[in-house]
């Protein structure tokens, strides 16, 4: 509450006038000017103390609100980050291929379906699919094979409603193996499509139920 000084002074004058009116006695000697100033001072002091109390309460409340808001923001940021991570996890799932093949294996279709849901939940998200090969094929041909593997995943997703311009494709042939080994297990790992974010991936919504 805020009061201006002139208002406080006029209230004091009303109190004095009322006392005079109720007494019905002869008018007392005029109140010395020094007493009237003391009253005004004490009123001002009381008022200042009250204001200070109210200010401190307000500050405490504001601080509490700020902290609560901060916590809420941190919580929601953490939640968004967790959800973004979950979404990125869905995107990062690789799709693997048989030797010298580029068809999506039936077991891998579900991985692509999850990515489709992800792209639908995040309309600003754009991705790149990069096809890779194992070391056994011909070095040059593997770039073409990796390209075909990237296109196979893209076509699967475009055929199910994702706009083609949201998915870029690339190939690295056998030039970037995940596993540098020379075993069937390493080769299986290396025959893959990798999915990366091109744009719109700072904050992601995970599709419902994932």
């Amino acid at each position, binding site marked *: 509450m805020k009061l201006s000084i002139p208002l406080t002074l006029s209230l004091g004058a009303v109190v004095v006038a009322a006392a005079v009116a109720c007494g019905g006695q002869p008018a007392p000697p005029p109140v010395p000017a020094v007493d009237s100033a003391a009253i005004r001072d004490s009123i001002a002091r009381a008022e200042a103390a009250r204001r200070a109390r109210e200010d401190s309460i307000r500050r405490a409340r504001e601080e509490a609100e700020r902290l609560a808001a901060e916590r809420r923001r941190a919580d929601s940021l953490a939640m968004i980050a967790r959800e973004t991570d979950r979404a990125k996890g869905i995107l990062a799932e690789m799709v693997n291929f048989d030797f010298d093949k580029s068809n999506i294996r039936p077991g891998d279709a579900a991985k692509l379906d999850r990515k489709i849901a992800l792209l639908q939940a995040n309309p600003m998200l754009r991705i790149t699919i990069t096809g890779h090969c194992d070391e056994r094929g011909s070095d*040059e041909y593997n*770039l073409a094979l990796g390209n075909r593997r990237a296109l196979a995943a893209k076509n699967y997703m475009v055929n199910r409603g994702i706009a083609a311009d949201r998915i870029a494709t690339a190939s690295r042939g056998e*030039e970037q193996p995940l596993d540098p080994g020379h075993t069937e297990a390493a080769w299986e790992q290396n025959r893959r499509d990798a999915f990366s974010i091109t744009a719109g991936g700072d904050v992601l919504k995970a599709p419902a139920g994932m």
Partner: protein
Amino acid sequence: MRLRLLAILPLLALVPGMSAAQEPTEGVRVGITYQPGVRPGMLVLGGPRTELLDSVRTIVARDLEFSDEFEIITLPAEDSLVLGIQTAAGSGSEFVNYPLYGALGADFAVRARAEDAGVVAITVYDVRGETVRREFTAGVPVLSDPDFRMATHRMSDEIVRVITGTAGVAATRFLFLQGRRIYRMDADGADVQPVSPDGAAAFSPSWDPRGRRAAYTEFHDGGGYLYLQELATGRRLRLSFTQSALNYTPVFSPDGNRFAFTRSDEEGTDVFTYNLESDCCLQRLTSGRFADNLSPTFSPDGRRIAFSSTRSGLPQIYVMSADGTGQELFAPFDYGVTGSSHAPEWSPDGRSLAFHRDVGGTPQVFVMDVATRTVRQLTSAGRNEDPTWAPDGQHLAFVSDRTGRRQLWVIDLETGRVRQVTRAGEVRLPAWSGRMY
């Protein structure tokens, strides 16, 4: 063959037979049988010993060995001094001991001597005819000059030309991929230098017809861009028409004016050409929504392009006119039986096409006779791939892992002799230059 002269003098009669000693040609077969003793013996004579001349003799002897045209007769240094040309005191006339050279198995002998500063004189002797076949001089810079080796290789090639009628291929180089970078190397395996900068991964190097520039791919972002780099200066330029998509296996047309390469993008993988001379006219030669077409190679007359294509299922070798018309199967195969065929390279004489083909899960080098379209398998030991022709059309380099790691090997198609060129790291995608003249 290494002989100690004093010890073998009584055995000289046996020498020609000994010169037939031959390293095994394991891993090579089909139609190439080396006949011992057919190649003429070659003696590189000693003489005035200077550091430069000794280096010239060492390099020339090895070049002549690698030419696969001669049986090199090697003698310890002190013996080769004895064998040097004797100059009679006073008269200045020279005594050439043809009977001794002949007894050692030599059909030809070569002498190197310093003519003037920076000039080496080579004499080629016909030992059987007891005459000088040819004498020539060549400018040879000091040992420390980066051109010293190539100048010496040129002398070797001239010696081969003087004797056989066809220049050797010592004055040539390789480009190859090792790790992420392109390197160049002399044909004898010496003087390895990086070409592409450290950093971005490079791929599929090739030479311009004059051996002055390298073309190759460098991977950036989602794509692969083609670069042209001057080897002398290192100055390079990114070909602007390859700013998008994945572009690789660049090859020059034999006249150097055009450029063919493979592009992979959302349309698939196809062969394109570009006119470098007029800097225009990107042209797509194949269209393969349902097939990949890649790895173009020009015929030496520039009128045809062979390439690999998946149009019949597994990749096989096809051919078309350089404008893309008249596409047809080139290297015959049995459907469902023959393995994938890749990486064709037309021989510089136009008569043969080399490529690699999957045999039981392992690539092997094949050569097709273009006139008859008969195909023969050259290799069988280990994995052998990405053949590239020497300018003589007689030697073929390829990558083999027969010793464990992928290394560069050379095969002589006339004798079937194979030799290992590199011994370090892993070598891939070699390209053999034309002669460096």
